[in-house]
């Protein structure tokens, strides 16, 4: 008996989003979703500032903290576009120079949080049973504290600095990844392809890596993107109350704090760094939404 292989069955062309290349899909998202374009634009701007800040800033030395007392509290003008602060430093330069530490810290925090949370969540969700119970109770202990409070306590113990603020925030953030990945893993572990892998004798760690994590990479990536923005805000908050970056480093949260006593007379000192935090957070949120649409074209956007 022979197999009559007639014409090769054509690949389903009906799935239009899969037919186009990755660049075509990016183009479609950018064209149809102007918010995504705004988000990507903001993030690109921030990355450029972080990388090339010292060449872009008009007064890079002032950006790093060099004072210029004779020029203090100047309103925005031709020389100092966004004015100067109470030590005469150019606000624009300090905002530009602040992009790199803000981005570095938040990427560091999100990376650490994901590195802890993702494996724990995957193991808890895939294995289930007592291990799941134990791991989830531990995450709940961490989640039962308000995040900023937990970060404050940690920094108070470790001593205020940018690095310690990062560690503190990572400690607050990992449970969210554990929960996210656990939920995904629980729904994936009963899928037939996971059972097929077990029937083949694939080792557990490989099933988790190859079949579970690979199929929940999209929600992790989206969450991580949004979180980079949230961490910028949280790190700014810690700096604002004096538990994060220390003077004279160009930190946006610190700058808001430094200007808050003069917000009525010299409003530009606090307002522009605050605006920078807002735009960065907004940018990462919009980018997260855009990524969701990009990776999951079937999800209809309302």
């Amino acid at each position: 008996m022979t197999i009559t292989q007639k014409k090769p069955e054509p690949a389903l062309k009906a799935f239009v989003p899969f037919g186009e290349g990755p660049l075509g899909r990016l183009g479609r998202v950018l064209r149809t979703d102007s918010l995504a374009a705004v988000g990507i634009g903001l993030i690109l701007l921030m990355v450029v500032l972080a990388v090339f800040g010292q060449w872009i800033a008009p007064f890079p030395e002032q950006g790093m903290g060099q004072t210029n007392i004779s020029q203090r509290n100047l309103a925005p003008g031709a020389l100092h576009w966004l004015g100067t602060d109470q030590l005469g430093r150019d606000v624009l330069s300090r905002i530009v120079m602040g992009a790199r530490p803000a981005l570095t810290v938040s990427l560091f925090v999100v990376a650490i949080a994901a590195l802890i949370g993702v494996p724990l969540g995957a193991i808890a969700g895939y294995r289930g049973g007592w291990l799941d119970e134990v791991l989830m109770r531990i995450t709940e202990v961490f989640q039962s504290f308000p995040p900023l409070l937990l970060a404050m306590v940690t920094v108070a113990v470790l001593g205020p600095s940018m690095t310690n603020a990062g560690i503190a925030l990572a400690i607050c953030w990992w449970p969210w990844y554990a929960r996210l990945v656990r939920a995904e893993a629980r729904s994936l572990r009963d899928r037939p392809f996971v059972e097929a892998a077990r029937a083949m004798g694939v080792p557990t760690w490989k099933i988790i890596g190859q079949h579970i994590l690979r199929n929940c990479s999209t929600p992790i990536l989206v969450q991580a993107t949004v979180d980079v923005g949230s961490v910028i805000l949280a790190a700014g908050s810690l700096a604002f109350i004096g538990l994060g970056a220390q003077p004279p480093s160009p930190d946006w949260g610190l700058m808001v704090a430094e200007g808050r006593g003069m917000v009525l007379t010299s409003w530009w000192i606090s307002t522009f760094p605050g605006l920078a935090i807002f735009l960065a957070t907004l940018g990462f949120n919009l980018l997260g939404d855009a990524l969701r649409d990009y990776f999951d074209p079937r999800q209809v956007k309302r």
Partner: protein
Amino acid sequence: MTALLQLDNIVKTFRKQGKAFHAVDGVSLAIESGQTFGLVGESGSGKSTLARCALRLIPPTSGTSQLDGQDLGALSRSQLRRARAGTGMVFQNPVAALNPRMRVQALVAEPLITHTRLRGPALQARVGELLDRVGLAAEHAQRLPHQLSGGQCQRVGIARALATNPKLIVLDEPTSALDVSVQAQILNLLRELREQHELSYLLISHDLEVVRYMSDYVGVMRQGQLVEEGPTADVFAKPRHDYTRELLDASPGSRHNHQLVASAEPVTIQL
């Protein structure tokens, strides 16, 4: 001669809201080398649960399953994992049984990477050979599952099950999610592979015609129990149990047609 697969008094009990439910209730059966054992019964009769207990994908509540004289229940986790090279499994939903993120090449290579030392070009060559054997072209190796039809996905599933040269392959409703025309192709492929590789099948199906076409032995399951068992021709010609007779009567065309006929099952289209 010991049987290739020997199940003794398998019981599997699930607890649902405190109430015990016997999915499989004391089933014993043996599959000789080179034979195909067809397991029929309506949905919920415990066929799939029994097959999963047989391969110890789920642990049976009691009873033993011996593969080639080796009690699978007595093996350690890693021994059991290695023993899985001797078995293969083909699933009902061919698309869902393939990881949507993996290309055909990687899907077929997975059991080989797990159980053999084949890597690099040798691995690729073996994958190509397997794809060829199940009637897929080399170009399919770079496709993702959603770029294949249901029938092609099932061919990938079969290639994967064959990869480690197992003696026993469990076919869990291998054609019930496929188009009628594709069903026949897949069944013919499975028969051909059985000849070439001296395979034994444990075939689970609710479609009597499929079982009749494929099996040497038939077992009829009802509510977790094996109510009738025997050579295919005997069971179909003179069923002893009332339930088997009911099943046969309910099967379309069963009295008139002894060929493989188009099943009256609604055809599920897999997207």
